[in-house]
């Protein structure tokens, strides 16, 4: 089984560690602070409190066999650099490092990070886009020019089939799924609903009020769709 190492248990590191553990992965969580280590100890395969900038400590933990390491020591960039270098020397197969700025990212790649992530920047971007377009529920940027978006169905789509709307022809976009809540009554007779997802809906599928459309396409075209009424 793949072994994951998380160095730095701030909010981000802790969340990654917990979620990987929930998915049943072997996680080794490391932080300088014994309190943070204690908090997570019950949930992960192994938790250790040590100074990760000291190569000996990382070696003693047997991190040589680790498949993926996530370095998220926060704002302390010098520690991030040292830890990334050490993990690279130890032969960890894939190192993902958290950075706060593109400059930090460049340095981390130079010292051996395979991938750099900018959680604050990415979250900020996502939130800004979401706020700018209230119809937009979620956005995943696949490349610089293509994305997947989740939008609330524009009112003008309601009652029409995908075929009639011919979004593929008009905008070169594909509706890859429809999230639709199915109304029901609960045992006590109160109204309720069940969340449902229709994957790759066919051309005859009729769009209903309140549907969330999951659409893949060019980001420019998707922006047009986001603003349709």
């Amino acid at each position, binding site marked *: 089984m793949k072994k994951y190492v998380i160095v730095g248990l701030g909010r981000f590191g802790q969340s990654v560690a917990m979620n990987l553990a929930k998915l049943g992965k072997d996680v080794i969580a490391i932080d300088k602070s014994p309190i943070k280590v204690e908090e997570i100890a019950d949930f992960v395969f192994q938790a250790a409190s040590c100074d990760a900038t000291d190569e000996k400590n990382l070696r003693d933990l047997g991190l040589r066999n680790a498949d993926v390491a996530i370095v998220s020591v926060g704002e302390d960039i010098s520690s991030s650099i040292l830890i990334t270098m050490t993990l690279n020397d130890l032969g960890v197969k894939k190192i993902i490092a958290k950075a706060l700025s593109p400059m930090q990212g460049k340095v981390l790649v130079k010292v051996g990070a395979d991938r750099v992530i900018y959680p604050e920047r990415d979250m900020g971007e996502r939130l800004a886009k979401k706020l700018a377009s209230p119809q937009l*529920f979620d956005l995943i940027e696949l490349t610089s020019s293509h994305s997947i978006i989740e939008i*609330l169905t524009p009112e003008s789509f309601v009652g029409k089939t995908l075929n009639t709307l011919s979004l593929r022809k008009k905008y070169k976009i594909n509706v890859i799924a429809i999230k639709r*809540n199915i*109304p*029901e*009554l609960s045992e006590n007779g*109160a*109204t*309720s*609903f069940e969340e449902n997802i229709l994957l790759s809906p066919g051309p005859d599928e009729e769009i*209903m*009020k*309140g549907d*969330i459309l999951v659409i893949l396409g060019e980001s420019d075209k998707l922006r047009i769709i986001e603003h349709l009424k």
Partner: protein
Amino acid sequence: MMDNNVNKLTEYIEAGKFYFLNQKYNEALLYFMKAIEIEPDNIEALYSVGILYESINEFDKAMDYFKKVVGLSPDHNDALAHINKISKNE
């Protein structure tokens, strides 16, 4: 007169539920609102409107109605659960 109103109230709520189950949201809303007109504090009608709005992803409106329900009945666990769920998503 009183009995008549009670009957109407029940009828409107039932009609609202019927249309809701058939995904006719505008009609459902109309009937739930008629019920609320007769009895503005009717928890069943207010809760149903909250559920209706949530099911069509209009969370702000859903939240207003769930809050009304909790205002009238602070232990309404279902309404509280929906308020929690919506706040988490936003």
